[in-house]
């Protein structure tokens, strides 16, 4: 019983946070709600006895990605101050409509197919050693590839986001002036 209650609770929490992340007006709140949703998901993983994945999810998403998103929000704060900018694109209703259609499309098979209704088998013996062996034997190549990918992404992100010398030393680049400039840019 504990499992079911906790699952439904966590599910509700996660869905709520997700909806909030998508619906809130202020970006920072959205980012934090998203982080909460990710944490909720991590707990669901734990509830599914996938311990290592849960903690990894927690460490990566809540620890790193949330911070990244928040920093991105900070660095592009000119957006916030723009007066009267509507947050959602004009034709957001059609977007949500399609999303609902998509949901229906996904739900139908899940509910219809009988094979998915069965309960959970006995909890597998969780062991990090198994995961370690698996990683180091069958998945050693993907592991190396992911390592390379991460370094590349790291360098790429730094290079892209690095302030180019051209716009770096422009006099008008201090945050205050930047906000003023965005003001002008907006109504151009």
């Amino acid at each position, binding site marked *: 019983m504990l499992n079911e209650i906790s699952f439904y609770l966590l599910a509700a929490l996660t869905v709520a946070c997700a909806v909030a992340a998508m619906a809130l007006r202020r970006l920072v709140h959205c980012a934090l709600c998203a982080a909460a949703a990710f944490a909720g998901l991590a707990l669901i993983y734990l509830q599914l006895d996938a311990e290592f994945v849960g903690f990894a999810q927690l460490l990566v998403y809540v620890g790193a990605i949330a911070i990244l998103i928040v920093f991105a929000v900070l660095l592009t704060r000119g957006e916030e101050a723009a007066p009267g900018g509507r947050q959602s*694109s004009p034709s957001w209703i059609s977007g949500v409509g399609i999303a609902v*259609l*998509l949901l*229906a*499309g*996904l739900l139908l*098979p899940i509910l*219809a197919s009988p094979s998915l209704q069965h309960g959970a088998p006995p909890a597998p013996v969780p062991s990090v050693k198994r995961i370690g062996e698996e990683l180091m034997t069958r998945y050693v190549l993907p592991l190396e590839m992911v390592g390379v990918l991460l370094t590349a992404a790291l360098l790429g992100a730094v290079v892209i986001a690095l302030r180019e010398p051209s716009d770096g030393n422009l006099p008008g680049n201090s945050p205050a002036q930047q906000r003023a400039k965005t003001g002008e840019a907006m109504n151009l």
Partner: protein
Amino acid sequence: MPHLILFLWLVPSLPLLAAGWGALLKRQRRRLAAGLAIGAMALSWLLSCAAFFSTLRVRILRQSCNFTWFDLAHTTVQLGWMLDPLTAIMLMMVTFLALVIFIYSLGYMARDQNFTRFFCFMSLFGAGMLGLVIANSLLLLFICWELVGLSSYLLIGFWYEKPAAAAAAKKAFITTRIGDIALLLGMLWLYSRSGTLLFYNHGQGCLEQASLDRLVAGATMGGMALSTAISLLIFAGAVGKSGQVPLHVWLPDAMEGPTPVSALIHAATMVAAGVFLVARMYPLISAGPHPAALQVVTWVGAVTAVFAAAIAMAQNDIKRIIAYSTISQLGYMMMGLGVGGVAVGMFHLITHAFFKSLLFLGAGSVIHGCHGEQDIRKMGGLKQLMPWTFATYAAGMMALCGVPLFFSGFWSKDAILGAARDWPFSSAPFYLGVAGAFLTAFYMTRQVCWVFFGKPAEAQGAQAPAHESPAVMTIPLAILAVFAVLAGFLGTPAWPWFDSYLNGANARFTFAALFARPQLLLLLLSTLVVGIAFALGWRVYSRVAWQSPREADPLEKSLPPLFWLLQNKFFIDELYAATVIRLNTAFSLCADWLDRVVWAGAVRAVSGLTRALAQINRALDESGINAGFDLGCQGLRDTGSILSWMQNGRIQRYLRVLGLAICLGLLALIWGSA
């Protein structure tokens, strides 16, 4: 020197080289042009002498050297040159005469601007004539024949500014052309039948017995023997070139050219080419049991002799008289060939060449002296003013008329009359020959009286009095006069060297032959005829010569219609004009009409058609294809813009579409499977 034959081709080549080089010279290089021409001719003359002496000593009758001009797939066309007594004699005569006349023309043409061009054409003519003489193939002979025709055209029309000279050159060229066509036809026919055009080719040549028998055997549609038909055609060529009766009209007009030209070409060599051709082709013409062609030659020769002599009596231009006398003498040669064979004809040709060129050069110096005056009625009394010219001219005149014993004309004409008398077929040629001799003597005395005797006419008074020609002209006259006398002794009945030389035998001196009955009778008859003619002529014309001003010609007074007929040359020119030329113009008009109306019309129609087609094509292309294509492009562009509306760069639009697609896919999958 048996291998001299190898160098015989140099004889025509040197003058040809001189002509070529002369042609490139500038007009001012007079000395070089003259030197070239004379030098080349002198070298050729030396080579000819060497050849002549070699034929004398070496008893080989004939040497020939052939080479392949070009070879077609299955046949080869061969040319070649040969050396036999006939060629040697002609080489000697042509080169010697050309040399003398070149020297003479140095003086005669001195004041002419186109001096270099004159000598270039003269050496070109020399090359052609010499090539014709040594040719061992009818084709090479024909080529040189044409070259000679060309040079005669160029030389007759030398002073082309004068319209008369240009017309005369054209007339000469066209009439000889008519003869040449016949020669060409004969040549082709001969080639097709005998397989080769080489005369003597170790038994294979067309004039050798093997092919002759074939030709004689062959028959043509008229029932005539093939050899007779071919030889008639070839004789037609000779008639054209030597100015025999039907085609003689061009020779008198050819006097428009400078006198040395007339002397060399229209007296000695070129006109003699026709006779030489008949002599060369004699085996063919006389082939067969009773050669009809030979009789034709004889009759044509006889008729021409009397006909031309008659006309000569009524002419007033000094050169025209000599021209008609040349025609009649050529008639004599043809008759000689016809009745007496090659030796008789050729002997008269050689002697005639010397005294006729002498007469022409004499006339030239008279004209030169009288500052270009040619009408004999305006001349007179030049005996005192031009003594050298008178003396040499008189020698030439006596040789021509056949004054007995010392003058060459007598012996050669006598040989012909003798042969004519013995001619089995008919004795008419003999009587015509005698009449011709009488007429020749008569018009020559007329001319001499008018020109040299009597008081100097007022014409000379007008300009400076006539003066003797310079040495460079009189010396050649003297040389020729000597030869005119000596040449006769080669072929006298007593010592028939010429006849034996040609036949390759050895001449024996038998004085008694002179007094053999028929010979003696003949000699007396001819001297009698000449004597009567001189007396008649002196009586009629000497009186007139001394009057001044001279009235009309006594002959005209006594027989006006005959004189009028003779003066107008029996209206043959007018006859031709009326018939042949009219036909020709009719043909050209018809061709012109055909060309302008029919063909031009057709072309114009075709061009119109194509233009119309082009118009239709353009219209079709313009409206149909272009418009259609533009329409297509426009449609493409429109659909493109519609599609581009879809691609508006907004990422979310793409995501939506993607999502929609996934849903539809899922739904299809579910419904499809369920």
